[in-house]
């Protein structure tokens, strides 16, 4: 407590700390009876008991439901201290003073009494606020807006963010000229004040109505410092009071860390290619209204998924799974093709089951169902497990070639880039407009070789470049 005191008082000499220590203990002992006044030169503040004010309607007791501050926190006037509840009314209690919270008189869910102390606040004595003084009622303003600070009896308006900035740079607000409404001190004013101190020139403020205090308004002759400023432009980074934020990784993200670490153990090899989707684009345009009339939104994915399944029939090793000891390969009978989905939480991969026996239309309908469940956050365990092969349509966001990571226990994955209109040469050597999409495959090199991947990709490509060929596979 002693050390904390030293830090919080701006100009205390070390020799006084012992005195402060002693005083503090007695302050706590007597806090219920006396109001303590400092007459010595020590600049640490007095402890003031902030009592719970009248709630209205003759209410005498409330329940404390939430504390917004804890002991040791510093508060400004009008900051929220706690939330209390009484008979269906929730009341936000705000601080009357600037200072540091020294004691909370109640725990959560305890009954608090109107007129009795709620918190003890240590007020900085140099601010000169008498605890008996009534708070001046001003029109209600948003929490983000302005608080008043009384310095030597002169009200200086500044937002908490601006005051913090001033405090961090050891600037007294009373020395800064405010250029905002009602002489409010703005961030720019603090920065200009700083610039003057260090001789730096700041980049022009983006707000048109802020006019930096003109040196001409003060009849001060140009100092050598000003002259120096004109001839040597020095760029100083703007003071940024943001702090790093560290959070623990929990829940779903923790699980993803595990999965991706396991994926890293798989030796990936990549294979990429370019697909001419000109015919497919046209076909889809024709089929879209037909699907819509049956209540289904038709994208390109159902075609990609079905073509993949047809390819897997020829190259079943891509729909397999390697056991942990790498002794056995299991060829999965079902083609449960996963579709990577970007949701609020992150990447989830629901799968369409049994693609080998589904029509393109059925796949489209199932995708619709999974997509609406996905965006509502209501996918079930069955939808999210049992996948054997995955396609990721990253192209809807952007990109061409990527390097997708295989999702264990699968052995292959394909990532689809965006469809671009590009010039290509046809058989006659003429240039034509082609709808080009890039595909990037990754496969487990322990059981899949380059040739297999290439042949599978070529087959998949041929189905999509010439959609009519899929007809031959219709059952």
């Amino acid at each position: 407590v002693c050390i904390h005191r030293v830090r919080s008082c701006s100009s205390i000499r070390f020799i006084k700390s012992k005195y402060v220590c002693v005083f503090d203990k007695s302050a706590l002992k007597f806090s219920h009876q006396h109001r303590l006044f400092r007459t010595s030169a020590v600049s640490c503040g007095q402890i003031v008991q902030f009592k719970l004010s009248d709630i209205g309607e003759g209410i005498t007791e409330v329940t404390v439901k939430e504390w917004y501050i804890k002991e040791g926190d510093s508060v400004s006037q009008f900051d929220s201290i706690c939330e209390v509840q009484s008979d269906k009314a929730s009341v936000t209690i705000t601080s009357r003073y600037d200072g540091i919270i020294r004691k909370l008189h109640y725990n959560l869910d305890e009954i608090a009494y109107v007129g009795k102390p709620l918190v003890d606040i240590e007020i900085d004595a140099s601010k000169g606020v008498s605890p008996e003084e009534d708070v001046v009622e001003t029109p209600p303003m948003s929490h983000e807006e302005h608080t008043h600070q009384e310095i030597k009896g002169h009200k200086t308006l500044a937002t908490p963010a601006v005051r913090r900035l001033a405090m961090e740079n050891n600037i007294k607000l009373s020395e800064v000229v405010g250029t905002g409404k009602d002489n409010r001190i703005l961030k720019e004013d603090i920065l200009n004040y700083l610039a003057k101190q260090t001789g730096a020139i700041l980049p022009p403020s983006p707000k048109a109505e802020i006019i930096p205090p003109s040196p001409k308004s003060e009849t001060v002759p140009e100092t050598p410092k000003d002259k120096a400023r004109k001839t040597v432009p020095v760029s100083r980074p703007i003071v940024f009071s943001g702090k790093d934020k560290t959070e623990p990784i929990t829940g779903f993200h923790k699980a993803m860390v595990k999965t991706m670490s396991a994926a890293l153990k798989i030796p990936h090899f990549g294979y990429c290619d370019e697909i001419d989707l000109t015919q497919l684009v046209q076909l889809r345009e024709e089929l879209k209204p037909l699907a819509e009339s049956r209540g289904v939104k038709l994208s390109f994915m159902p075609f990609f998924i079905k073509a993949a399944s047809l390819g897997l029939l020829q190259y079943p090793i891509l729909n397999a799974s390697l056991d942990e000891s790498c002794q056995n390969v299991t060829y999965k009978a079902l083609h449960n093709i996963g579709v990577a989905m970007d949701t609020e939480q992150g990447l989830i991969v629901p799968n369409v089951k049994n693609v080998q026996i589904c029509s393109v239309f059925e796949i489209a309908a199932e995708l619709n169902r999974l997509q609406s469940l996905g965006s509502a956050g209501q996918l079930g365990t069955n939808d999210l497990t049992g996948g054997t092969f995955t396609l990721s349509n990253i192209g809807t966001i952007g990109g061409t070639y990527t390097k997708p990571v295989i999702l264990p226990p699968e052995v292959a994955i394909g990532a689809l880039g965006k469809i671009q209109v590009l010039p290509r040469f046809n058989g006659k050597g003429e240039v034509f407009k082609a709808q080009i999409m890039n595909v990037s495959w990754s496969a487990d090199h322990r059981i899949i070789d380059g040739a297999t991947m290439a042949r599978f990709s070529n087959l998949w490509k041929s189905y999509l470049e010439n959609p009519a060929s899929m007809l031959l596979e219709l059952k």
Partner: protein
Amino acid sequence: MVLQSSLKNCLQLPCILRTSKAGFRSTTSGGLIIQSVSNDVYQNLAVEDWIHDHMNLENRQVLFLWRNSPAVVIGRHQNPWQEFNLRLMRQKNIKLARRRSGGGTVYHDLGNINLTFFTTRKKYERMENLKLIVKALKALCPQLDVRVTDRYDILLDGQYKISGTAAKLGRTAAYHHCTLLCNADKFVLSSVLKSPYKGLKSNATPSVPASVQNLFEGDPSLTSEVLLDAIAEEYAVQHQIDHRITLINPGDEAVLPGINNKTEELQSWEWVYGKTPKFSVSTCFNMVYKDSVIDVKVDMDVKHGKIEVCRIDLPEQWLPPALCSELVKSLTGSKFCPNETTTLATTLLRVFPQDDELHSRWNLLCENMIMLM
């Protein structure tokens, strides 16, 4: 959507709100009646916030009229799991909102009207507001047996609750809002507002269940629109102001600067679920697997909507202990949320041995855990 009656017109609202903000002393009006054009519960709650934070209510009181599409609204310090059936709510696509005022849980739909009375903190007086409503109702339908109780409810025929009240008091402003059941879906109301969750222990504010009735059922002429108009008229008379209702669009950032941030905050998980007071779940359930019944005991502490402590007691060796502890470790720190648990559980499955038996046991356990949320 709100019906436009001949008495409503879109005044130059920016003019009114801006002058209020600057502390303009109105010479004529001591009050203002506004109605929301939106049925989005979050937007409407944001308007309440905005008025509370930004309007100068010294010389002007405000009545805000609003209706919502289906939503469950819980009080500031309540526990949703204690109050209603979240599963059913999700299935029916009903929204969940947490308001800033105290009190209990209510079900809103377009057949329920909401009235908010804004005043300065000093002029906060709930009884007067409720008496105003009763007066308006009696003016419409003199033989209606409606009265205010000392719990600030309005009862019909001495037994059916048709209105509930809650309030929020800030530093200088205060509001009292209440519902009025005109023609709400009583069936959905009663099925949703019944909590199936067992073993919850918490200090959250509990709701007091009550039998409800729609005013419409007693008198079909009492539609939401008719009631809104009648109350607005009574308010206008009592405050000696023009019976003119100003329409307000809660999405209009120009008229209500900062409103979209407020709406976003009210929709955020951190507010809706994260503000649930600390609670614990201590329950057991049976799982039927093949031919046996497995008893499971679960203990969890949930703080800020996240699982702080988790314990699962299973019969020995039903699941490899390593897997069970993996589940507990992953649940600790994660949100007490079915979606989070589903994605977490299914993702973890990828790194486990590929054993069908193991997978189906894991899925069964996880699905049962999800049912608790």
